[in-house]
């Protein structure tokens, strides 16, 4: 057997490397197609947002901007509703993320301690809430009863903790903090809260960074809770305002007053939508390449959950 393989190896080698070569070409071709298919819609939206409205509505734009203009962005910058939404979303994302991360650490650290009496039943209480829920209507009634309906806190407190992220944090604390460290600290008279603040948190920077990213993106993109818990337009996050314009197609007529003809109005309406998509998604997509390193790492921590 061994001799046979050894003998036939040269001819095999050449034939196989040819099939491998063909395979590599197909494989690379496949990946290039995927790359283009994923990239194209984003590129198209950006190009269209910088094009002349008439060119957009008459279908001349398909890859690069036609008759470059920043008209739509100028209009958007003048439109106060967008800025209210932007400011609200920034508030929900920063305060919400702060609350989320605090709550996640508060829940995850004690539950990660092996010596906590009753940790399994307590953990089960959390996990069960992920598997079963009372449903939308009882939650809605609860939010009303505790007086959060139509306040900013309605977007922060009901979703203050993601059990999934808590589980990831627990497995991080369990696997990357050595038991000896805790014992040494306890010998030195360190209390549990001191240990959490002075030792656990500084050692958990990567997991906290990842949680911040996921929670913040979640808040920025939040739509459902705002839809059901808010009525006051002054409190609306950006996504709710975007919904009115992008999906329900209700564009404020003041934004279109410059356009004279019907065609120009229709073109401007579409142009504004493209520009809004860019303005709303830009911040997240711009931050993401910088935190990509952490992001992949965080997913790995999630993947090896015990």
């Amino acid at each position: 057997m061994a001799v046979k393989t050894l003998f036939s190896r040269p001819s095999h080698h050449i034939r196989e490397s040819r099939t491998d070569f063909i395979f590599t070409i197909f494989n690379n071709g496949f990946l290039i197609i995927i790359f283009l298919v994923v990239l194209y819609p984003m590129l198209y939206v950006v190009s269209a947002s910088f094009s002349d409205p008439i060119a957009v509505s008459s279908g001349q734009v398909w890859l690069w901007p036609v008759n470059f203009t920043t008209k739509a962005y100028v209009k958007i910058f003048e439109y106060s509703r967008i800025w209210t939404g932007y400011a609200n979303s920034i508030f929900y994302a920063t305060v919400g993320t702060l609350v989320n991360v605090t709550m996640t650490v508060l829940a995850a650290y004690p539950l990660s301690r092996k010596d906590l009496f009753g940790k399994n039943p307590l953990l089960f209480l959390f996990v069960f809430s992920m598997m079963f829920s009372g449903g939308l209507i009882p939650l809605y009634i609860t939010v009303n009863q505790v007086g959060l309906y139509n306040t900013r806190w309605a977007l922060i407190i009901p979703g203050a903790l993601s059990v999934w992220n808590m589980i990831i944090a627990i497995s991080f604390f369990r696997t990357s903090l050595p038991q000896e460290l805790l014992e040494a600290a306890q010998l030195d008279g360190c209390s549990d809260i001191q240990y959490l603040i002075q030792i656990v948190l500084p050692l958990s920077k990567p997991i906290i960074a990842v949680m911040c990213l996921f929670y913040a993106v979640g808040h920025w993109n939040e739509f459902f809770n705002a839809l059901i818990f808010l009525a006051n337009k002054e409190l609306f996050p950006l996504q709710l305002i975007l919904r009115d314009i992008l999906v329900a197609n209700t564009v404020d007529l003041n934004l279109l007053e410059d356009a004279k003809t019907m065609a120009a109005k229709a073109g401007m309406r579409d142009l504004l939508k493209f520009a809004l998509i860019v303005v709303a998604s830009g911040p997240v997509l711009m931050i993401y390449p910088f935190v990509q390193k952490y992001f992949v790492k965080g997913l790995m921590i999630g993947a090896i959950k015990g």
Partner: protein
Amino acid sequence: METTRPSILSCKKVVKRNTWADIWRQMKRSWQLYLLLALPLAWLAVFQYYPMYGAQIAFRDFLPGDNMWQAPWVGLENFVRFFQSVMFSRLMINTLGLSLYSLVVGFPIPIIFALSLNQLRASLFKQSVQMVSYAPYFISTVVLVGMLLQILDLRHGPVNLLLTSMGKTPILFMGQAKLFQSIYVWSGVWQYTGFSAVIYLAALATVDPALHEAAMVDGASRLQRIWHIDLPGIMPTAITLLILNMGQIINVGFEKVYLMQNPLNTQISEVISTYVYKVGLIGGITNYSYAAAIGLFNSVIGLILLVAANQLLKKLTDSSLW
């Protein structure tokens, strides 16, 4: 060594005599940990378990403004009404159909993508493909649906521009009920493939390189190595994810379906979550109890499916969710 032995023995004794007093002492020692847990537990009670308790309005005839606990008890009336209504079978077919379609398409594609990407050596090309492929994950549902409306637009959307340039008649994509599910599923593939592939790429990174070297010596082609080494290497991860996804098939997310709905496609696009919202919270005749009954039905089926999926997972892979 000499000193550890007695301590293990004494430990055993302590475990044997584990009385309430010992437990109490231990709990007192870790009072700070319970203090830390207090806030999350209070949150859990108010925003998770209290609504579960409140789900009993599904068995009552509760009107907005009434006292929840004094509304007349009607037993299973709301459930029977739902099962007998025309909406029941339509919602079930739409919900399960949409999930299964998503699963059949959305499950294998990230695997294929990960296997393919794993063939590349670290390079600028690999990095660019990876970075671009995750990016759509960060786009919000509202923006995604807004983009769909623009790209599939009848007049200026590039898809219809392409169709007209090929001499075909443009299609009103969003206005056709029969296209709703395909648009929903394939735009989901666009948005989530790169992100879902990450977990498979992680699994592929743990495949022993010695296996590949040995196979190369035996003259295995790249395709053969993918089929016989890489694919088995990610199988456990893939099976686990598949079973977990099967446990979720009754839960179709609200946002994207709701945003993609229009009067022309509701026949197909109405799913349980959107229907609960419409019956319970919008329109003149909000019916809390009826909507809560549909929601509770959904939660119970979801729990049963998840437990069943986990049983299956335990049987097949020895791993378990809890």
